[in-house]
């Protein structure tokens, strides 16, 4: 009976600290980092923007990629992009390195370097003619502040007003061969 107040106090403080931790950005950050988030998307591109930047009528943006967020605020984004136009389908590999910051349930992405590698002739031609403009187009799509929602342990939704919802899923790691598994 004499220990009851102490037990109650410790329990109450523990619960209070747990609530604070669960509601904090730190907890969400821990859930997002060191996991590879994969996605596929196929979207319309505003034709006027593409026509202005790239001198051609692009209408679709097909992408398959992965996003890796590190605890030190660095990010790596890698994807294969196929642009749909009336004449050809330029294909590129896109690599972005940059920073991410989480605050009050919103995440901001900032690019520090973007590199493209063409994977077909149309892509090579597009890069030769409009690499700088393509970079602007990619930055405009990527450098945003989005609301973060983890709908379950493995699905991440990023949303912003007026823009398309972006769903990503934790990539299931393929089992790698190790000496132990080989021997067994």
């Amino acid at each position: 009976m004499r220990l009851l107040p102490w037990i109650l106090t410790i329990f109450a403080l523990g619960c209070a600290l747990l609530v604070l931790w669960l509601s904090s950005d730190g907890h969400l950050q821990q859930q997002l980092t060191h996991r590879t988030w994969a996605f596929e998307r196929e979207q319309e591109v505003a034709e006027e923007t593409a026509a202005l930047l790239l001198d051609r009528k692009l209408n679709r943006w097909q992408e398959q990629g992965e996003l890796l967020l590190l605890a030190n605020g660095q990010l790596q984004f890698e994807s294969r992009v196929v642009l749909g136009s009336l004449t050809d389908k330029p294909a590129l590999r896109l690599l972005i390195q940059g920073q991410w910051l989480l605050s009050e349930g919103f995440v901001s992405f900032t690019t520090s370097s973007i590199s493209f590698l063409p994977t077909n002739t149309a892509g090579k031609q597009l890069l030769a003619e409009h690499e700088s403009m393509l970079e602007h187009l990619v930055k405009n799509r990527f450098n945003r502040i989005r609301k973060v929602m983890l709908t379950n342990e493995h699905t991440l939704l990023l949303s912003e007003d007026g823009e398309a919802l972006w769903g990503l899923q934790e990539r299931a790691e393929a089992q790698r061969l190790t000496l132990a598994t080989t021997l067994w």
Partner: protein
Amino acid sequence: MLLSPLNEEELASLLQKQAFEPEEVTDWSRPRLRWIVASSLLALASLCGLYRWYLLQPQLPPPLLLEWQQGAPVAIDRPELVTCLQQWGNRQSLPAAEHILLEPSDLGWSVVWISAQRTYNYQWSDAQVQACH
């Protein structure tokens, strides 16, 4: 008649002393009890906080088709739209969906197809959504 071992003078003095004595300390003002009450209230408030945190978690409700409205999923009861989306998904060779999210955007409708292994993002025009109705 009740016999008392005290004489009248002693009895009067005792009654007088009792009358002028400060009141006994009540249970509520005891520090230990105040401590118990305060920590119980804190524990209760923390448990309420935990429950509120749990309720605020954006878990997707069971229906397959959901509309994303202001950062929260809302179930849509449109069986014909679900069937149409599933047929479209079959044509695209998509794996079975656990959830399909729709959200209006500037360029039409965002369609997020969440399967067990992968998530696919598409954009549908208003005409495509209307054609499904």
